[in-house]
């Protein structure tokens, strides 16, 4: 068992929290869970905004060290890439949520640097038609 700092990337948003790693399972305290992913323990269960997961039926998810990160990801159907050795995990977008976003036909906004490091956003171009071209040198 190793207790210590653990990095969580929630769709790219990075936070450092305290976690216990035991046989490749990552346990996060309720405090850590709130800091890293915004899920909070309430009488109704584990909640984020209006959404709550009742914990009575999810006892496998819990131990004295907190909540099983992979179990929680599975419950949320969010993809989890995990490196227990390096103590870092990336929680991505659920296929269902990504599909709903695409089907809305709203172009997701982004901000990226040019060669000089200056940031540009898609939303800067609102009011113009845009041809977005993704390419690469490879």
């Amino acid at each position, binding site marked *: 068992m190793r207790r210590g700092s653990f990095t969580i990337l929630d769709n790219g948003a990075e936070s450092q929290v305290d976690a216990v790693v035991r046989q490749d399972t990552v346990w996060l305290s309720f405090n850590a869970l709130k800091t890293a992913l915004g899920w909070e323990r309430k009488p109704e269960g584990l909640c984020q905004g209006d959404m709550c997961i009742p914990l009575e039926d999810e006892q496998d998810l819990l131990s004295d060290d907190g909540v099983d990160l992979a179990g929680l990801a599975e419950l949320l159907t969010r993809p989890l890439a995990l490196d227990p050795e390096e103590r870092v995990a990336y929680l991505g977008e659920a296929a269902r949520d*990504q599909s709903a976003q695409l089907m809305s036909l709203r172009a997701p906004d982004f901000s990226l640097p040019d060669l000089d490091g200056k940031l540009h956003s898609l939303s800067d171009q609102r009011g113009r*038609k845009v041809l977005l071209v993704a*390419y690469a040198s490879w």
Partner: protein
Amino acid sequence: MYEELKDFGFTVITVALDRSAEDARPYIEKAKPQHPSLIDSEHRVAHLYGMINISTVVWIDEEGSIVRPNAIEYGSDIFKEFHGLESAPHLNALRAWVKEGKLTDGPERVRAKLMLPSADEQLARAEFALAWHLHQAGKTEAAERHFERAGELSPFDWTIRRGSMPIRGMNPMGPDFFEIYKEWEAAGKPTYLTRAVENQRT
């Protein structure tokens, strides 16, 4: 194309899915574009738009709606022999949209042409993002495990399998590339459109 259309309320945004600004610099400096030419080392745009290959184009209207979804199109015919795609039909359609507001597909047909991701493909994107994070932190060996896993989960995502090659010290024009090409060919050369039809049937 940008020069011809820029006075019609139009712009181009190019996004280089390259590991660093330095990889993209020669292309951008040679083209000297007057429109935003951006660098996306984390493949954020590929993730947000569900892109699996290059060069992928998306048309976005004045209100920020997608009016033509992900498609492979080229700005010229330089590599036509290799991929068999002509650039002219796309460029003509683009002109008609920008100058005359002509679109062949309404929202429902645009939706039918969307390639929706599978759970494995989303996991592959998370694995790639983790690998990139580890690579940035100098954890080359750990990064390699996750690049490899990402490629296994999404074998026809070129942004992952070929796009990770320069980062991993592999040659994106060498034998590793031809191996993926052969796999892709054997699978019937899947594209956004064939995959869209496939995943909306299931």
